[in-house]
């Protein structure tokens, strides 16, 4: 299992180090020798900090780009993830479950952000006591333990906020929650107003050939919820999943089923938050759960069939002699004209030897950014079923570089107020038998947002 966990800043200095197992050769950050001569400072070299140093030298200070997130140095394996300038590294000497280690590192980042916001050097330094406390709790002898922020916050509190001694009942309640079946929610939550926010967030990914042929397209979506519900409510979530609707259609055979059948979508695969009863989904394909309190991601899904591609990009690149390029890009919006897309940005890459660019666009603003080697064209809003175009003349410096320009794809960013996969929420029912509120009393908000993922057209 995980032998140790280190957090480094961008210079490779250790901010946090927690060692779980001796085998990783870290007599590490502690000075080994007893105090023989306190006045003479020890040279650093005599401190045994093998693992810590090895990672710094071989990965953080490595000249090359990182070639793998797993590094093996002297039979010790290092897993790392990077968040802004901060490196998180897990170290082990055993044949650990690698997927688990990475999942844990991400989880660790989530937990830390939930406690003190952005993971930055300053925040880590200011909260080092808290981080040690967390590391002690969520990783025992290298085995990940309960890492749900909701549960952790009940007994790992920021310094000083909650120092009165909890009563005995409270204590045992905490422990039973941390270890219990519903480790993500505590009992006795009360709200005056029971409210639910449901966001369907989709990112649509596309790779298109210059001729307009879809090479690959998929939507990866997330259902993100914010629940402010009292007690231990049982929720049931339904959407226009093709399998469910077909099943119902067979049973009822009503015209409604036929109608909705048209709008149902085929979901390639989905994954759920641990609160969802997977065995029930597997047998009945119904999504039922007791929600965590506050923010969480209920499910992720992926679809590849019948995707609405909100924009189409039509590139036209012409080389005029050796020193000039003519580029024309047309974008077409492909959705109901009553809807508005926002934050549209088209990025047209330019060759490295570009000396000047002349731009003409009918809508929005376009700029050539030499530092990014790209023309960035921004449009604030655009309605559906419209078309817009930009043309550019790119002047090139003559080079003797044999290698041709690689022509990176034209990429696009946007946000649309619908789900490109066609997913619709059919219902979200709340049952709380013990408290006196019913499904109707809960205020529910549903919102659909479609964003561009990697939306590229080759040119």
């Amino acid at each position, binding site marked *: 299992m995980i032998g140790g966990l280190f957090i480094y800043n961008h210079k490779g200095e250790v901010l946090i180090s927690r060692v779980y197992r*001796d085998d990783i050769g870290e007599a590490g950050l502690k000075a080994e020798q007893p105090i023989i001569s306190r006045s003479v400072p020890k040279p650093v070299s005599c401190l045994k900090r093998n693992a810590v140093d090895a990672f710094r030298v071989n990965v953080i200070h490595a000249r090359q780009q990182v070639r793998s997130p797993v590094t093996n140095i002297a039979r010790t394996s290092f897993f790392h993830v990077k968040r802004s300038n901060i490196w998180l590294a897990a170290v082990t000497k055993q044949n650990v479950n690698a997927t688990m280690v990475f999942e844990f590192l991400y989880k660790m980042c989530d937990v830390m952000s939930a406690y003190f916001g952005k993971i930055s050097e300053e925040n880590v330094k200011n909260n080092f006591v808290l981080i040690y406390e967390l590391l002690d709790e969520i990783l025992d002898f290298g085995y990940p333990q309960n890492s749900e922020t909701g549960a952790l916050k009940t007994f790992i509190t920021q310094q000083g906020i909650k120092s009165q001694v909890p009563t005995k009942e409270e204590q045992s309640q905490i422990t039973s929650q941390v270890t219990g079946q519903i480790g993500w929610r505590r009992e006795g939550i009360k709200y005056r107003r029971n409210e639910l926010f449901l966001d369907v967030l989709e990112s649509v990914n596309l790779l298109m050939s210059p001729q307009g042929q879809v090479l690959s397209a998929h939507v990866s979506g997330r259902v993100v919820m914010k629940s402010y519900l009292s007690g231990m409510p049982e929720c049931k979530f339904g959407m226009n999943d093709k399998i469910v609707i077909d099943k119902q259609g067979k049973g009822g055979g009503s015209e409604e089923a036929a109608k909705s059948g048209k709008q149902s979508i085929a979901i390639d*695969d989905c994954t759920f938050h641990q609160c969802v009863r997977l065995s029930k989904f597997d047998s009945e394909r119904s999504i039922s759960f007791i929600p965590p309190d506050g923010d969480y991601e209920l499910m992720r899904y992926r679809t590849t069939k019948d995707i609405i591609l909100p924009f189409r990009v039509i590139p036209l690149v012409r080389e005029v002699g050796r020193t000039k390029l003519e580029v024309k890009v047309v974008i077409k919006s492909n959705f109901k004209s009553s809807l508005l897309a926002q934050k549209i940005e088209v990025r047209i890459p330019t060759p490295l030897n570009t000396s000047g660019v002349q731009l003409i666009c009918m809508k929005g603003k376009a700029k050539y950014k030499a530092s990014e080697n790209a023309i960035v064209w921004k449009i604030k809003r655009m309605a559906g079923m419209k078309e817009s175009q930009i043309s550019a003349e790119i002047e090139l410096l003559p080079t003797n570089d044999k290698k041709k320009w690689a022509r990176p794809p034209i990429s696009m960013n946007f946000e649309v107020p619908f789900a490109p996969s066609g997913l619709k929420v059919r219902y979200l029912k709340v049952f709380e038998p013990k408290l006196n509120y019913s499904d109707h009393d809960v205020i529910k908000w549903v919102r659909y947002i479609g964003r561009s993922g990697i939306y590229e057209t080759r040119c």
Partner: protein
Amino acid sequence: MCDFPFFSLVCTGEIFELKAELNSDKKEKKKEAVKKVIASMTVGKDVSALFPDVVNCMQTDNLELKKLVYLYLMNYAKSQPDMAIMAVNTFVKDCEDPNPLIRALAVRTMGCIRVDKITEYLCEPLRKCLKDEDPYVRKTAAVCVAKLHDINAQLVEDQGFLDTLKDLISDSNPMVVANAVAALSEIAESHPNSNLLDLNPQTINKLLTALNECTEWGQIFILDCLANYTPRDDRESQSICERVTPRLSHANSAVVLSAVKVLMKFMEMLPKDLDYYGTLLKKLAPPLVTLLSAEPELQYVALRNINLIVQRRPEILKHEMKVFFVKYNDPIYVKLEKLDIMIRLASQANIAQVLAELKEYATEVDVDFVRKAVRAIGRCAIKVEQSAERCVSTLLDLIQTKVNYVVQEAIVVIKDIFRKYPNKYESVIATLCENLDSLDEPEARAAMIWIVGEYAERIDNADELLESFLEGFHDESTQVQLQLLTAIVKLFLKKPTETQELVQQVLSLATQDSDNPDLRDRGYIYWRLLSTDPVAAKEVVLAEKPLISEETDLIEPTLLEELICHIGTLASVYHKPPSAFVEGSRGVQHKRLPGSAGSADSPDTGSAAGVSEAPPAVIPSQGDLLGDLLNLDLTPPTTSGPPPAPSSGMQMGAMDLLGGGLDSLVGLLHLGGDLGGSPAMGAGFGAPPTAMPASFPPPVSGGLDDLFDLGGSVGMPMGAYSPPKSIWLPAMKAKGLEISGTFARRAGVIQMEMTLTNKAMSIMTDFAIQFNRNSFGLAPAGPLQVLTPVGPNQSIEVALPLSTVGPVMKMEPLTNLQVAVKNNIDVFYFSSQYPISMLFVEDGKMERQVFLATWKDIPNDNEAQFQIKDCHLNSDAASSKLQGSNVFTIAKRTVEGQDMLYQSMKLTNGIWVLAELRVQAGNPNYTVSTVS
């Protein structure tokens, strides 16, 4: 702290200040002081001097302060063991605290203090905590057992903690179960042979129940543990699969991959024609694809695993090619892995798309990636024949770009394409030759030279081209030099008239001016060939080359099987077995996929091979058994269709049975023992010696089998019988060392003849051998004579003379021999059975009178009868054949058309065996009786 390395010691003044604060009365001040201490500790300053002061702060009811002090203790206790004892009292007291959080904290921290003296005090509190009423404490205590085991394994066993831990598997709380499973799995890993994690259907059921309820991490522990279980039959396997499949929709990729591992493993046992098998295959694809939308690091791990899965079961993802298309912004490590999988999935159906993509990639920025893409195009050509033409033209397009490394890479792959499709695409040679000058990498130069040499007759100026390389001959790398030498010799053989001078030149360069032995050797060989017999030279040098195979970089099947059992772990990321990167014994035992259900018509065989602990069948009497064996022998089982799985020892046995003749009986009996590790075999075939009637004197029992061998050794030359070599120690079990061997009696000396084959990547040296005590006191008469190190893929033959003066212990079966072989890597154990005939001594000829007397003395119940069928020898031939193996014919009598041979033999330990052989036309009947 790296900026100021010399401040790693806090100056004395600061220490003094901290000391004062730590001893202050105010709680807040104390806490601040401890925090400062921890901060200094984190940045690498030495604050161990404050140990007593910090420990004094331990007795507090403030949980936060306590945690800080514990943190300090974990860091410094090891360097100050004596002072650490001071803390023990508080720990013990905290373990009794009414607050479960404190109890758990105390037992957790105590386990982290790796000081021997403290562990003694840990036992009592740990015992209590393991039975604590609070699940939080129990789950912490479960992990603590693993910690303690790491420090002092003996103590944990003596104190009976392992049993308590086993009980926790039945705990009512799922998280306790999960942690207990994790702890037990880890402990079991360091005791490969212990039956610690006694997985049986009941415990499996408990684990599957807990699986639905525990945290994501707990689910991973349980799934990883489940993967080590071998179900009894396909039905059990299916029911486990059914209960594991819902995990494929978990948000945590580690849960998903661990579930995939369980399914991939258990699927091996499901018959392929089962509906469920197909359903399962279909269910596996979507979750694997979903893993590719995770964070890049997870994508990388997933892709490495998918690479394995695709090699094992290509059908799962064959329709999912598109998801592996590279995105422009993917990190380079993801791009390279995707490319690998694209090639594996390439088929006639999708080749057009793949090629278009690959061409696109070949214009990207990253050099490694571009090279790999070019190489991939070549591999597509070799893999999908229909696409070869298109691939070649794509490669030509790329060569036209004149980007140096693209051109070189393209030439290297085109060479392979020429090898695969000879005489098909030679029209491109002209284009290749144009780029001759730009090649600066040895591999590309060598490839180009090979092409020129191979097609010398079609290239008009081949001699000029090769000559141009010759100028800088000494500056070339060996690879190029060797290739150039061969190419010029080829050229000479094809156009002998114009190139005499050239070949002289290269031969003298290679033989006289070079100090590379390989080059010199090759030079001399060619020289002599050419000067003695040019025709022979032509036959050798221009011989037809074997075609190259489609998939060149497949992982070796046994390794692949092992890696499939390690899906999700580091081993699957490195594509290496755990023993390659884990030190010590931990996790080194090899895992294997369970035996496949095999053919539909022999389901029993398959499942018997899968379950290794099948109890040996009770066999009523020997004669019947032998009859059975022979029946098997004569009426081959109908399992001719499906090829036997390599892991199934049973089917190998069956194959041998088909091999024919009585000879195979020997092989069979030996296989039974030699396969050693597979008791299933022993149960089926190796059983005769063990199932002897109790009244029968032991020495004969083994002998009986072998007598038949002798009788039946039809095609054998005269002389002592020695069974063919069989594999005693498979390479899988011995880190690449494979030992096969046999026993023989040569000139009165018993010899163990072995072939040691090194199938690992490193050189093996320092061989030694030892025997366990055995029935006849066999022992090596000298050391194992392996003088030279055995290189990778090299074999060595050794004959080890044996003496019979070693310590004696009765073995089951009687002729079983347990052997230990040591080399520079490790010690390996195996067992083998020797033919008893090798123990028959030369002076085994009894006096006629003595024979008659003893024959009469033998009580009838010491007599056993056997039939040998299908032995077409007349009595004389049989007796002379047997004499070669020191079975002597004392008398011969003819009664009622039957020949009766009376024979005697003597074992090395002085036991006499007497036998009567009755030969009737084609159906000899044996009667054997013994004296001891």
